[in-house]
């Protein structure tokens, strides 16, 4: 395949940035999207230009590092995949592909397609944990049976890879799906109950402080989420918030 790429180039956080056009040829349909980007970058390095900076690491859809906004969709046109799992067979010879970073006020661009997602880190630090120290004499794991149903549902929520596609897809740049997933994981498990009220309040407060927008239930996040995190998690988080507001200490 021969393709035209329109890519967002931005030297640094303060640079204005612009779209730049490149051509790549002889792209195999079996390549992954990032392998196609490797071909472009090798081409750029060989011609003495700076390669396009983009985040990636595992290249198997689990680390959550890759984050491209391709043809107007976070992680591109395929469903249920991160950018690194997108394959060129989704495109046709002669296509023009636009590639931009994940955009949101809380995700400032660092360089080209690389954005700063440390706002997600601070939300997790605000309450995304169960307060238990490592001691070596924690109670036996089977002393607390947990229904398979709850464990499976908690696992589904915990599958979030923290990529931020939900934010990039949302017209309000809301992080509700990401935060809802974490709150849900613990809300569904007995271990999470003790701190449930504080957790949800603190995480939501931090989310607001970081400048993420409100949720207006458009559902775009669920569509683009590579891990199929469902909107139910947002509903559950809202219920948890209501519950938390009723808790008096």
């Amino acid at each position, binding site marked *: 395949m021969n393709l035209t790429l329109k890519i967002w180039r931005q*030297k*640094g956080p303060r640079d204005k940035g612009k779209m730049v056009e490149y051509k790549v040829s002889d792209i*195999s349909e*079996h*390549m*992954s999207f990032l*392998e196609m980007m*490797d071909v472009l970058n*090798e081409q*750029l*390095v060989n011609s003495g230009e700076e*390669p396009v900076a983009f*985040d*990636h*690491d*595992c*290249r*198997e*859809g*689990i*680390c959550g*590092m890759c984050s491209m906004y391709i043809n107007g969709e976070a992680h591109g046109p*395929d469903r*249920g995949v991160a950018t690194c*799992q997108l*394959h060129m*067979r989704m495109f046709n010879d002669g296509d023009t592909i636009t590639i931009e970073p994940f955009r949101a006020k809380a995700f400032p661009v*660092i360089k080209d397609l*690389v954005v700063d*997602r*440390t706002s997600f*880190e601070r939300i*997790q*630090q605000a309450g995304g*944990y*169960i307060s*238990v120290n*490592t*001691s*070596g*004499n*924690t*109670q*036996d*794991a*089977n002393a607390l*049976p*947990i229904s*398979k149903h709850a*464990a*499976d549902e*908690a*696992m589904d929520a*915990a*599958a979030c*890879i*923290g990529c931020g596609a939900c934010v990039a897809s949302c017209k309000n740049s809301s992080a509700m799906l990401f935060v809802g997933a974490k709150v849900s*994981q613990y809300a569904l*498990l007995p*271990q999470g109950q003790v701190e449930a009220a504080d957790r949800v309040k603190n995480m939501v407060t931090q989310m607001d402080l970081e400048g993420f927008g409100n949720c207006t239930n458009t559902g775009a996040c669920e569509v683009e989420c590579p891990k199929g995190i469902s909107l139910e998690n947002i509903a559950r988080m809202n219920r948890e918030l209501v519950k938390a507001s009723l808790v008096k200490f």
Partner: protein
Amino acid sequence: MSVLDSKVPKGPIKDKWTTYKDKIDLVNPANKRHIDIIVVGTGLAGGSAAATLAELGYNVKAFAYQDSPRRAHSIAAQGGINAAKNYMGDGDSTYRLFYDTVKGGDYRSREANVYRLAEVSANIIDQCVAQGVPFARDYGGLLDNRSFGGVLVSRTFYAKGQTGQQLLLGAYSALNRQIARGKIEMFNRHEMLDVVKVDGKARGIIARNLITGEIERHSAHAVVVASGGYGNVYFLSTNAMGSNATAAWKIHKKGAFFANPCYTQIHPTCIPRSGDYQSKLTLMSESLRNDGRIWVPKNMDDVMAIREGRKKPIELSEEERDYYLERRYPAFGNLVPRDVASRAAKERCDAGYGVNATGEAVYLDFASAIERYGKEQAKIQGVSGASKEKITQLGEAVMEAKYGNLFQMYEKIVDENPYKTPMMIYPATHYTMGGVWVDYNLMTTVPGLYCIGEANFSDHGANRLGASALMQGLADGYFVLPYTIGDYLADDIRTGSISTETKEFDEAEKEVKDRIDFFMSNSGTKSVDHFHKRLGKVMWDKVGMARNEKELKEAMAEIKAIREEFWKEVKVPGSANEMNLELEKAGRVADFLELGELFAKDALIREESCGGHFREESVELEGEQKGEAKRNDTDYAFVSAWEYKGEPADAVLHKEQLEFKDIELKQRSYK
């Protein structure tokens, strides 16, 4: 006499760890506040260590090259984590896990370390459940287990196909809690580029801020390296693109011995490569071997017909298939250890029976499992006289529940539906058993410098059993290092904070800056990847699954030549004072180019076959084991620990003799 002292405590193996913990020096909680520890790497090993050390009261500075600790490559572990809980009541015990690990490692690991690992394994599961890790459960609400290769019990805990992710997110949550308390200062997007020694002790590191390019100095009373494995020396592996040996190699150059570099695990079940542009290989978890049967066609005609697309694998009858693992190893069948399974696949493909265009693929077939589960479900659900279609449908649902995400991953990459047609798989580099040499305390040969997780050499000998790396990483970080490091730091309570304004820091920083300046000013013509790919090809062809003297010598010479060319011809665009991914890669590949040569040298001196290291000159010539790997315990029951002396070829070998007091040395037989 060797300079190596493994510091294994005296006494019976069952009591060593307990006695050790009772006797070590402790640091009083008020004093811990005055002690700083640097942890490089926040994967399972580093993340769990950093969190635990901070809980204990130390001041921790943690470093990772990704933008979040949650992205360390531990996240990609799929299959599971072992623990001797014996929840299944199938005869498991601490001793059995210890025994399986030593045997699986082909008797090349240190007994005392492995026993301790087995001993703390049960605590790991308790700890993770308390943190909210959503392990798989059965209908009674208790934890479920699966089996992995090389063992005869079910002791593997799992969270769907994302066990590493869930365990890492558990450690990450513990880390976040301490970051919030101010006990851990987290440096994301930072790369350690050197260790700083003061009076012979590790007292800090030099790191590069990967966003601004700034070179920073950080001091501490002890440094812990938990930077993962070096599988990317092969260019293609199941590791992440950024996985590297730099931290481990830099400490090696500053005095930490590097042990058994040639012990590498080539994993049998990975998706075969499809072309030259390939950037990495994807693992299909070993857990699939619980339910998949591995085969190639018996007849060459069928092989050709399949390659040319004239026949489909499902059209071959049972008689036309060669289930070669079941044929060669009736006792373990498809569940032989990884090294054995990988070599058997290579043997069939070298003989011409590979089933894809490159001739490097075998089938992993789920049809029998789908039928078996389907029938079972039909019975459970009371569907009498179920049709074949109904059985298949029920069976596929079971497979989806067990391996759904893996099957989806496969389909996205290969564009074939593994429920309907067998998967194609081929071995790929996956894990490195070798690494920085450490004693029983997990301390390297440099005082105050520790190494944990995949980066060290301990515990797995010449071959790691499935689901044991996650166990080791968390054992090191949660339960071992926090004790052993305290014993060392007890002497440092009056030292006070370590200054970074000293000549030792000046020198280390200068070295780092000089190298960066070289890359930025070199007027070469070839990209970093160009050299990395060439190195990878030499490693795979000559230091891969089967090795021999002639090719190892060639490999050493070729790697040296590539390295010399690299230093003349490498081209790094951009500048040093900004995010520069090519510069990051250049530094990593420079280190791989040295490590690769030492790797080949280590393989050359080890004239025996053991675990993942297979020397063609050392095979059984007769008897039931004919053609199988031949170990040589008389001459090679030692750990090779290499001391840096400049050129990799000049490295000096130190031997740690391995003693087997609790396990009898036997040939591994999976027949």
